[in-house]
């Protein structure tokens, strides 16, 4: 009863949205205590609090137990809130787990173009996320890594992601602008500077270019570091 999809839900990718999680995982979620105790009667609004309090992201762990992250994903699939709500989840800056949840859900239900449009800006979010590993231990990944895996990988958090078009295809169809790297300016300047220097002391030994290359990498690192601090 409490596990049914809302009656006015639209089909997604041709099926009931809840079927986007595999049957076995779904039934494990229905059996899990977190689902029965905490996810009962949630709405898109009250789900925000639960998502904010998530301890980690991840798929199944230990004795094939689903994480809270997966439980809430299934809840979202069940409730099927409006797209604007999910976009608000993704755009919020305060709760990183809410953002991760929104992104994961959006990757499951969205179409290719929108996925690139709304998820790629999150590649500039370098905050840390805790991830539960299958053996129950935790490790740290960053939001941009997670988003990158959502855009590229087939299987994230023990869930098969629906196929999306390759970015290249969308670019060729002129539906998407080519992506500009965050480091583009930096790299260009560095390249210019290096070229100038090369011209200047072409007569000198070759090791100088290697040094400049090394310096390049270093500045990039510093740049990243700044971004992380800013976030």
């Amino acid at each position, binding site marked *: 009863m409490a596990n049914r999809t*809302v009656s006015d839900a639209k089909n997604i990718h041709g099926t009931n949205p809840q079927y986007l999680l595999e049957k076995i995982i779904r039934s494990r979620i229905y059996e899990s205590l977190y689902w029965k105790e905490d996810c009962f009667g949630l*709405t898109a609004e009250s789900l925000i609090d639960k998502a904010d309090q998530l301890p980690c992201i991840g798929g199944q762990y230990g004795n094939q137990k689903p994480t809270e992250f997966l439980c809430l994903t299934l809840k979202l699939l069940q*409730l099927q809130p409006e797209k604007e709500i999910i976009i608000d989840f993704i755009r919020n800056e*305060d709760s990183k787990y809410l953002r991760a949840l929104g992104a994961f859900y959006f990757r499951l239900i969205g179409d290719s173009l929108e996925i690139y449009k709304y998820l790629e800006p999150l590649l500039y979010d370098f905050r840390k996320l805790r991830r539960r590993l299958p053996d129950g231990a935790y490790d740290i990944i960053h939001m941009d890594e997670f988003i990158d895996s959502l855009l590229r990988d087939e299987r994230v958090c023990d869930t098969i992601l629906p196929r999306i078009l390759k970015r290249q295809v969308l670019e060729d169809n002129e539906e998407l602008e080519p992506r500009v790297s965050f480091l583009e300016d930096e790299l260009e300047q560095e390249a210019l500077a290096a070229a100038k220097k090369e011209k200047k002391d072409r007569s000198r030994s070759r090791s100088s270019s290697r040094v400049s290359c090394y310096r390049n990498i270093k500045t990039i690192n510093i740049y990243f570091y700044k971004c992380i601090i800013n976030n």
Partner: protein
Amino acid sequence: MSTAYKGSEVGGDTNFRRTWDREEYEKKALERERESERAKVKEKPTELLKARKEKLELDKYLGKSQVVQTAGAASKQPGFYCKICDCNIKDSVNYLDHINGKRHQSKLNRTMKVERSSIEDVRAKLAKLKKKKEEPEKELTFDERIEKAKKDEEKRKESRKARKKEKKRRKREQEEQDSESLDPELAAIMGFKKFKSSN
């Protein structure tokens, strides 16, 4: 109500048989039918499903010993007791299934449908979250925490006292009512006066 039995009427040698008022019985039968139909159409729950606010505390009695009865009232038996349905459930998983179930929820006048939250609700909630993140709760010092714990304890004691008082009062009232319902004349004849409450 007039009796439906009309007694003997004129008639040959069968007048010793009882005859029945057909109209009266027809009316009765119709009424009975209507009643049973009304019972069949139960009132449908009107409210929407709500999430639980408080924690369930399924492990509240973990590591504690209790005196229980194996027979008798459901509330005294070991297990998880549901006040609303007056039933006792033996394990936590089944208890969760019960309180999430349709029967239990319909007793609370709730359907199994969840409210659909609008985008405005969600935005308001997100704004609240933002505010909360910006102003983290101020940390209490050790002394302040002790003070707070003391106050909480006092409050709890007070409420418990009030509850006990209320219970006693209700009991006394009940007893008085019982004694009043006895006819005073009859009581006088039988040789006893008002009941005294035990305290």
